[in-house]
């Protein structure tokens, strides 16, 4: 039986898969936060889930998983959520970002339209027989593939486990918004305190999970003036009588026309080189998806653990009705709250990319944030789940690694890496690409 809290960050190459387990009086409470990968090698997640299953407590003829959190619907976070890999697991709660809620009360046209347009664009580009480079092909396929994983999370897994998913946001339990009634709050063990929705399905009274992000009002906080950024969005779709998004002219998207004044070959080569703003939709959708990641704080026996999904950081201040990043909104809303400080564990956001953690080189608001949540004398434990240089990206970011390495107690100095010569001899947080699956033990805090 566990006596301490254990966090296992699995090596899924470029992705996230974290199992958190801790004693909760006479039971072990288990939370699975994401399970996905960009890798095309499916057995990665299958094998990891088999290992996870073994770690879960027995529950009748199955294994018990108390809570499954899919922070956001990107394939590197949800690819593993396939019923076939989880049929021996009994899941008691499933949390999804309110971004996925089809019954979202506010105007859903814009945010969901972007998702639909992105999906349509991906299908169109994929089917239009246009030559693609291998990176783009993988990206497009992943976009199309994640649709299946979303269906799993929304429908199949809840159905098979006799539950309904909960679309989570910071202000879900805020009674002034009237998003759920008291009966549901009781059923799901939710309350609203100190500006966050709190989940308290625990036997120990001091244990709780606080939802720090996203905000329910996605359009207001994360979308901004999208027409200005990607053109006349409303001209590209219509809403039918059931308020479902319908893409205009979708049926003509799949065949290339034939001009009269240049050859077919020249036209084919031309099409390959043109910029599809559909890709802008996909990029916009991707940012929006990241910024509406579920970010939650687990408090257990006076210890604080922060799980961040792929929350992004841009500039440290927010504007309503503008495109803001997740961290910016969190800091603005919660910067004075007692619990938003002195972490004991941080799962670094966005695989260690420069925009995943409030961090800039010079002194400023972001240094203040870092000093507050992971002060240098606190000795927090920090883990990055990553694989470098995927798709040519500069991930993880070296400067960020050095900064975080200087703030954690269990830093490592890894052997020389020619891809990152600037990290030679430097302290870094623990990285799955260097160590494989990482296990962190958190002991209870002093009384």
């Amino acid at each position, binding site marked *: 039986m566990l006596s301490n809290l254990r966090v296992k960050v699995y090596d899924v190459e470029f992705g996230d898969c974290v199992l958190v387990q801790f004693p909760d009086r006479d039971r072990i409470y288990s939370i699975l936060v994401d399970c996905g990968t960009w890798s095309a090698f499916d057995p990665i997640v299958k094998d990891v889930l088999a290992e996870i299953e073994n770690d879960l407590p027995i529950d009748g003829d199955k294994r018990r998983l108390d809570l499954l959190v899919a922070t956001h619907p990107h394939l590197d976070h949800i690819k593993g959520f396939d019923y076939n890999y989880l049929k021996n697991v009994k899941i008691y709660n499933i949390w999804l970002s309110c971004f996925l809620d089809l019954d979202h009360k506010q105007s859903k046209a814009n945010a969901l339209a972007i998702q639909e347009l992105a999906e349509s664009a991906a299908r169109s580009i994929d089917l239009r027989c246009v030559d693609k480079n291998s990176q783009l092909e993988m990206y497009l396929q992943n976009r199309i593939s994640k649709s299946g994983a979303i269906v799993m999370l929304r429908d199949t897994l809840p159905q098979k486990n006799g539950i309904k998913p909960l679309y989570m946001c910071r202000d879900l339990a805020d009674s002034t918004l009237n998003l759920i009634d008291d009966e549901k709050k009781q059923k799901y063990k939710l309350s609203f305190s100190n500006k966050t929705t709190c989940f308290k399905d625990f036997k120990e009274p001091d244990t709780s999970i606080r939802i720090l992000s996203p905000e329910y009002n996605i359009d207001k906080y994360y979308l901004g003036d999208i027409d200005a950024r990607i*053109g006349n969005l409303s001209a590209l779709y219509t809403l039918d009588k059931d308020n479902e998004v319908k893409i205009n002219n979708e049926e003509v998207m799949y065949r290339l026309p034939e001009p009269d004044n*240049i050859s077919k070959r020249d036209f084919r080569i031309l099409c390959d080189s043109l910029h599809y703003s559909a890709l802008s939709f996909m990029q916009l959708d991707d940012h929006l998806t990241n910024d509406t990641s579920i970010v939650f704080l687990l408090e257990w026996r006076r210890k604080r653990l922060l799980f961040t999904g792929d929350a992004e950081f841009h500039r440290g201040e927010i504007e309503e009705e503008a495109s803001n990043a997740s961290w910016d909104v969190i800091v603005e809303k919660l910067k004075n709250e007692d619990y938003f400080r002195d972490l004991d564990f941080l799962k670094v956001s966005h695989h260690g990319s420069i925009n995943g953690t409030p961090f800039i080189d010079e002194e400023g608001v972001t240094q203040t944030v870092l000093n507050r949540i992971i002060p240098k004398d606190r000795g927090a434990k920090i883990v990055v789940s990553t694989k470098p240089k995927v798709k*040519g990206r500069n991930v993880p970011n070296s400067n960020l690694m050095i900064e975080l390495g200087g703030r954690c107690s269990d830093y490592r100095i890894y052997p020389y890496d020619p891809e990152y010569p600037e990290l030679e001899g430097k302290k870094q947080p623990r990285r799955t690409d260097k160590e494989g699956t990482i296990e962190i033990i958190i002991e209870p805090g002093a009384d």
Partner: protein
Amino acid sequence: MEESIPKFRNEVYKFAYLLSEETKEELGLLTKSVIFLQDPYVAQKIPSMGPNSVYLDWEPGFSDGPTSERIAVVDYDVDSNKLVKPAAKWDDKKRCFIGGDNLPIDVSTESACFRQVNVWAIVHDTLSLFQHPKVMGRFIPWAFEGNRIIVVPNAGYASNALYDRSSKSLQFYRFGYEPNEMYTCLSHDIVAHETGHAILDGIRPFYNEISSIQTSSFHEFLADITSIITALRFNEVRYEVVLQTGGNLDKVNFVGDLAEILGEYNGELFEGELQTRSYLRTAHNNLTMSYLNNNWSCHDCSKVLTGALYEILSKITRKQMELQDLIRKQIALKDEKEKANSVVEVLWEAITHFTRIALRALDFCPPVDIQFIDYAKALLRADEIAFPVDALNYRKIIREVFHNRGICECEDTGSACNLETSKQPLNREINWFDIDRISSSTTAAYHFLNLNRDIFEIPENQDFAVVDLYDTNKQVSCGISLPKEIVLEYIWREDVLLEGKDFGNYEGEYAQLLCGGTIVFDDRGNILYFVQKPGVENKKHKKEGERRRNNLLKFIENLVRGDMVGVAQSEDQAGLGFWRPAVEVTRRERSLLFEATPGFRYHPREVY
């Protein structure tokens, strides 16, 4: 213009290059089009900069699109997958393009046919300018395999436009949203700028290979100066500029400020948001070569040379006004319109001469790795050949400007330096000198160079290629022809080892240092100009070769550190638009070839 078609027009066409504009008009060798002289944004402030009629060179074979000998407009929107049909049609009786519905083109920003004709006309006019006997006096090839560039006036949604060699295209996008949608194809600055890139790529295709920041910046300079030159050729534009400045081009004006629609849009709507490509630059600056220190932005660095040339134009104009005593006369004139008109003609003289100065120099430029000083020397030499007597002291003005901006690289901080060209080889030193044989083929040219390796400083053991050989037929005013120039370009490549961690994945590989030279002969075989780019194996100029090699290494290092380099996909797996890396690396002959892509001038915000 009469609507009747001269029966002999097709026959007369072959002599069109010898005829004046008035004669061409009489013979029906011009076609009328309507274009934006600047762009819709400027036109809101200065209505005369909106749609205006212009007369362009006619060619046989104009057809729908528009399509002409060297240009094919394909109005395809990649987002909606829509090809606009019918496109603008050629009406041979009226000798102009009409709408796809057989009616005159609706001159409106919302009219697809108008956009098609607008963009075609500016590309056609810009190419015609470069090829004109009073400018470069020859047909300019495109850099790609083929002779017809594809122009896409409304390719999709982005605040961008670009030239792409690999797809043989000029692509123009739209941005903003209704009712303020903006089409980059309606901006004269932007269309002329991109056409300038395409033309320079045809004249000197090896400038697209990564060699130094100055070479990349030169591309931006030439594109910007093309915008300025082509705009100032219109009477209406010169008139408005004169109204704004009184003929003093040092004063800020809408021609010296480039691509206002993008600058305005970027300032209001993209602040702090997406990284966008900024066309907005100004030629009004006093930047010197020190601005290039640790500066790896080709847009930024180009401003030094653009500013220098613009200053030269301004001073030439001033000189003309002084000569015609206009300044004193202006004071006497009361009427603003009269004042302006008197200066407009002077500005025409100035821009005509300036165009020759700025563009003729291109034939005298090295085939590879151009530096600003190479262009400065080429410019002076080309002008010297065309105007041996510098009666108006223009070359003195030019030298002073280059000197004051540090382009001449001389130690003399006092008066202007000489900007001397290198000592030219003497004919009597050269072996096997029969210009007719040399210019008969690239292999014959090779024989000539091979027999004279020592003179032209080609290392003994080095194989090399003659990459271009052509002649020109230039004129000065009044149709007087200059002696024919024969231009010969040759190159070779040296391996450069990428040593050190700073080269990332490319450490231990070989990059290619492009070396070579340009020789310009007259038709009697006299060497008018010789410029060379040595390698490290060059005995006489080893130091210069090493300096060039170090420039190349530094540039590649910066590109790698900035994560701008990616492996090129094969021809069959082209990237999609802005997803291509800024610099593509191809493996060739077991070393790496670094080439700029359109993305070199545009870095979209990445998903991650």
